[in-house]
């Protein structure tokens, strides 16, 4: 790691950048664009976000608030829990614990910095965490292993049984930094009784752990507030998803990022609800005019990203798709399987239902909801088993009438790289052209974005999609 990097605290660094970025939008457009001249690289992310208008501004504030919470947690007498994107932070907020979500912070670094998060990625390998491990954690984990982040009080992950390298990153950290550790572990099936009760039991274990580590007892009213807010958020999401299935898709492409980033940051918090409301207004306005959400206003192609997006180097992926008139009808990160979701028609049992009647019903709700988080739901079993990755992706492709499927992940993603080839073959048999991207969503050194984009365009052209 470069010595100069050792001078900075990662959380504070990202926080101050985002906070400042948030302020830039307060002046006039003229002022804003004049200011952009002074941040030649950072404009690559700031400009597109701000161009999304109110929702973009709210998103910046959301991120700023999230990072602020981390930086100020200990001063405010709150504990910090290191966790993973596919773990719903709602329970932490309900217990007044602040989440430090590695993948979210890795993403921010990968998006914002010219040198990405290379120093942190590599530091993990320096201390012996295998370089074949997933870059989504390494991108920020390196900072915490090097003592360049806020001091973590506890570690919770929910990827055991779903993704080894993810879960292993947290187990490694707990052993390396000697921090208390709890894992939610998922069996290779979804809706059987034994598994439903496993979800529940495991979640009670989590709550016991959180109570012990934070010294806060779980509070019924607080949990109810959070779940009621979640209910609202799910309803808005359902509305948006209904409209996403229209042709053309009225949703601005960057909203995909806003939806899941916001959910990973602030599930069950009202600031996220406000952003969703703004977004719903825009989408329905577009829908009313039968207008595509793309900047060009013209939709040439509908793509389903069956796994994750590409985060390295600003917002290049979304810019590129937008330029080419390709809309994104979602990816594995942006669907949460509330039983009322439009895509669960016919398989409602796969979803969760929010029940705020009493503490037991609410904890049960949390457990079943968390069991349906991105990746947790569909990567846990063989991809061709009921409710798993293939069935899910195919269902989404149909409901949102996608023309093609694109896989993007990281070389560290053992669980999908172990099955993506047959998965793609089966998709093609269903008549859906399927493309496998070989880059790394968080590390441009694996394949430069230009090379990735060139291959992507080649696929769309050669397969006659564009």
């Amino acid at each position: 790691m470069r010595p100069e990097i050792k001078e900075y605290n990662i959380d504070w660094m990202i926080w101050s950048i985002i906070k400042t970025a948030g302020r830039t939008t307060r002046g006039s457009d003229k002022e804003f664009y004049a200011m952009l001249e002074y941040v030649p690289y950072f404009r690559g992310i700031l400009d597109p976000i701000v161009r999304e208008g109110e929702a973009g501004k709210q998103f910046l504030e959301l991120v700023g608030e999230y990072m602020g919470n981390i930086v100020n947690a200990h001063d405010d007498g709150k504990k910090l829990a290191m966790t993973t994107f596919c773990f719903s932070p709602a329970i932490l907020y309900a217990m007044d614990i602040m989440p430090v979500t590695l993948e979210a912070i890795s993403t921010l670094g990968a998006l914002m910095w010219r040198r990405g998060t290379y120093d942190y990625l590599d530091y993990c390998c320096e201390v012996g965490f295998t370089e074949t491990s997933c870059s989504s954690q390494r991108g920020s984990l390196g900072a915490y292993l090097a003592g360049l982040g806020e001091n973590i009080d506890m570690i919770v992950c929910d990827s055991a049984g779903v993704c080894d390298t993810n879960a292993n990153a947290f187990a490694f950290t707990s052993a390396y930094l000697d921090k208390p550790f709890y894992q939610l572990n998922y069996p290779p099936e979804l809706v059987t009784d034994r598994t439903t009760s496993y979800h529940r039991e495991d979640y009670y274990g989590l709550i016991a752990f959180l109570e012990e580590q934070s010294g806060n007892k779980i509070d019924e009213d607080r949990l109810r507030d959070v779940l009621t807010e979640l209910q609202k958020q799910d309803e808005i999401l359902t509305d948006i998803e209904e409209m996403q299935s229209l042709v053309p898709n009225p949703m601005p492409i960057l909203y995909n990022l806003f939806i899941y980033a916001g959910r990973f940051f602030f599930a069950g918090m009202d600031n996220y609800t406000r952003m969703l409301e703004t977004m719903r207004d825009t989408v329905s306005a577009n829908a009313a005019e039968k207008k595509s959400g793309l900047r060009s206003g013209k939709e040439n192609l509908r793509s389903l990203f069956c796994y994750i997006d590409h985060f390295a180097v600003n917002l290049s992926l979304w810019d590129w798709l937008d330029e080419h008139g390709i809309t994104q009808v979602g990816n594995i990160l942006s669907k949460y399987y509330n039983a009322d979701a439009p895509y669960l028609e016919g398989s409602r049992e796969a979803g969760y239902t929010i029940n705020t009647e009493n503490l037991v019903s609410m904890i049960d709700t949390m457990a079943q909801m968390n069991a349906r988080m991105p990746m947790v739901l569909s990567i846990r079993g063989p991809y061709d088993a009921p409710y798993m990755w293939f069935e899910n992706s195919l269902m989404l492709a149909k409901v949102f009438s996608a023309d093609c499927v694109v896989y993007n992940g990281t070389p560290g993603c053992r669980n999908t790289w172990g099955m993506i080839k047959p998965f793609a073959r089966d998709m093609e048999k269903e008549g859906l052209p399927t493309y496998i991207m070989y880059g790394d969503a968080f590390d441009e050194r694996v394949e430069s974005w230009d090379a990735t984009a060139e291959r992507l365009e080649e696929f769309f052209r050669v397969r006659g999609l564009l």
Partner: protein
Amino acid sequence: MITAGCDIGSLTSKGVIMENGRIKAAAVISSTSNPQSSAEKVMNLAVEKAGMAMDDIDVCVGTGYGRDRIPFVQDTASEIVCHGTGARWLVPGAMTVIDIGGQDCKVIRLDAGGQVEKFITNDKCASGTGRFLEVMARVLGVSLDELGTFSAGTMSPITFASTCTVWAQADVIRHLNDGHPLEDIGAGINSAMANRVSMLVSGSKPRPEICMTGGVSKNRGVVQTLEKLLGSRIHLPRRADPQLAGAIGAALLAQKNGRGGAN
């Protein structure tokens, strides 16, 4: 006593003849596919330079990939020990040795007495080896020495896929096609290399003085970037060609252990 060290590497073979801790003569040739003939070739060359005959050598120690097929040695020792010993002689006071050879990259930590305390070698993809630079230089159509002059001093070294040597070529070619200046690409290659190596070095908890041996230590670009990444100075051998470290170490061991060899 006159001793010799013979280091048969995968790409180059080196021979050194020493008398009482001073180099009398040395030779470097590129290895043939037959280690035995490489060894004979290089030693004859060294002996010739020293103006003596093979029989004048009291003890000869062999090292390197081909060490077990050198006919005329009394004893052999691993690259690690030889490079450690050789580096300590080349840079007295060296506690951490970075040796980048053609096929691998070693980091050796020595104790005060010059014994190997801990070592790491590059198991991963080969982008941290001398071969990486050779392949890249060829793609750029420049000499290895020229490549070495492309240091991070240039304005914008290009970031490279440091994951696969040969794959990185695709990127190099793409940058060439996009008309990027050679210097920037070259600097990028050197930084990719340095970055790879720094991961290995930092992982070994280096202690000063840090020194670097092996052919790549002649590459200013790599050394400078590496110093920047490690935040500490890297000492380069002056007493002899840094490529000879292994052979020198072998010759020194030969002297230390005398006839009959080590163990």
